[in-house]
């Protein structure tokens, strides 16, 4: 099926201007839109979500793949002289970001929404709906939500406790906006001390399991079998929190970015989406 591509701009309540690609199949008008939320330091045009958006649009789904303010490691923000990106965002910023994107879609006459998040974007999607409990969000797809909260990482990652202590000390000294090079799993990363403590600190506020209980809609969790084991364990725990409306799928051989497995995952999502057909 043909689809049109439009680069759209939307605004958040705190005046951030964000962007996304909206894919619309002209032959199939719909009130349902899929909203895709990227992982840490990714953006709207990188795989796997961009590919998912295009492939699902070719199957008739209206798909909006967006930037959150956490796009790229460090990006221009505000009036474009300020600094934003993953290095600077707080986890709770996902609320105004997704509010803004959904407001934009509502203005485009969509009435029902499904959030599809990858990696940190999956955490954001679950936290968002667990907090907002919107009746117009009818489903969530969580692709490889990472188990990255403090108590888990302290047990798993040597040196993690010390990094958090260092970041906390920097904040106490008024150096919370200074940049630190810190890895996120296997990936090297860059964070301000403040953002690192916000995202991965002792409060465990990025453990999305408590939020999964309050979604009020079906959830599909997808994980690659080539990812570290804790991804699958966490997906099962999230699904357990959702209850009867939760489903978990393990994709044999897929890594965290689903290289060479995107077609298979699109197939899984497409099958799951059948329940939302008018």
């Amino acid at each position, binding site marked *: 099926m043909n689809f049109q591509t439009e680069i759209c701009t939307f605004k958040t309540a705190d005046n951030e201007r964000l962007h996304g690609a909206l894919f619309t199949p002209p032959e199939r008008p719909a009130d349902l839109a899929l909203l895709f939320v990227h992982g840490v330091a*990714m953006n709207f045009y990188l795989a796997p979500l961009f590919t998912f958006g295009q492939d699902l649009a070719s199957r008739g789904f209206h798909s909006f793949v967006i930037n959150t303010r956490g796009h790229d490691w460090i990006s221009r923000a505000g009036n474009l002289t300020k600094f934003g990106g993953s290095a600077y965002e707080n986890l709770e910023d996902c609320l105004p970001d997704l509010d803004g994107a959904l407001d934009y879609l509502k203005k485009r006459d969509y009435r029902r929404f499904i959030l599809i998040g990858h990696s940190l974007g999956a955490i954001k999607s679950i936290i968002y709906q667990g907090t907002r409990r919107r009746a117009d969000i009818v489903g969530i797809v969580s692709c490889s939500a990472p188990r990255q909260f403090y108590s888990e990482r302290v047990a798993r990652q040597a040196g993690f406790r010390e990094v958090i202590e260092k970041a906390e000390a920097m904040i106490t000294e008024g150096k919370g906006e200074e940049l630190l090079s810190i890895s996120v799993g296997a990936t090297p990363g860059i964070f301000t001390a403040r953002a690192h403590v916000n995202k991965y600190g002792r409060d465990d506020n990025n453990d999305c399991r408590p939020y999964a209980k309050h979604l009020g809609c079906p959830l599909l969790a997808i994980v690659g079998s080539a990812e570290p084991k804790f991804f699958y364990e966490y997906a099962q725990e999230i699904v357990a929190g959702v209850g009867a409306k939760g489903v978990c799928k393990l994709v044999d051989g897929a890594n965290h970015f689903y290289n060479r497995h995107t077609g298979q995952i699109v197939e899984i999502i497409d099958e799951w989406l059948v329940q939302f057909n008018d």
Partner: protein
Amino acid sequence: MTLETQLLDFATSDKETLHGLLFSPRERKSDLALLLVHGVAMNFYLPPLPSFAQALAQQGYHCFVINTRGHDWINRAGGDLFDFCGATYEKFEDSAKDYDGALERLSSLGYTRFILVSHSLGCVKSLLYQGTRKRADVIGVISCSCPKQFYSARAAEQPEFTQVLEQAEAMVARGKGKEFLWAMASGAPALFSAATYVNKYGKHENNDVRPHAGRLGCPHLAIAGGAEHPFFPEYAKALAQASGAGGSYKIVPGSDHFYHGHESEVIDILADWLKQFKI
């Protein structure tokens, strides 16, 4: 005119994957494409270039607005996305590979003639590129607010500049070229690795593009805003003069560096100049 919008990727010879938006008017096929290149830490979807591209596509021009590897301050790079690049880390010489990759992508789509349209730092890159490559298929260059940012110009303008550069040089000499350095760029705070700062603004003055403007082998239009720092209009004039008979310049009265509120005037200037080329 109905436009088709495609988000395309393209590969560079050193295996970076970059992205861009191609606006093509459905009813008007052409072998001519405009390649639009952003400024420091900008990208293919931030103003002003996408607005210019869309408006020009409405007038029949096929326009490809791209990311260079210097998009945003720090982005994910490399095949596995585990590396860092962006304006903080890019080197001037890398941009030639970015242009080669973008033009190759356009060639694979059937375009055979190209015009480079750039903003801010993108102008320096475009003039360096065409002044070096002298491609016969690049038939025009447009520079929108090319900054006069080479060493001697900045040393004369900015009291703190020489000190920051010395700091960067010392860091490079100590093997700390990848460490961060905060400095001013285009009047706002900017983040560079020490090695990139020396590469972009060092004493070699390799980003003084006036000599390159004289070697383009094609018409060159330089534009600047009347409300920018005076060195922008001065440099636009100097670049046009350096380009010889094919050079011209226009100042947009009252306009800032991003042409806020003056976009339509700039589009008119571009469209008027582009009339010399058959679509």
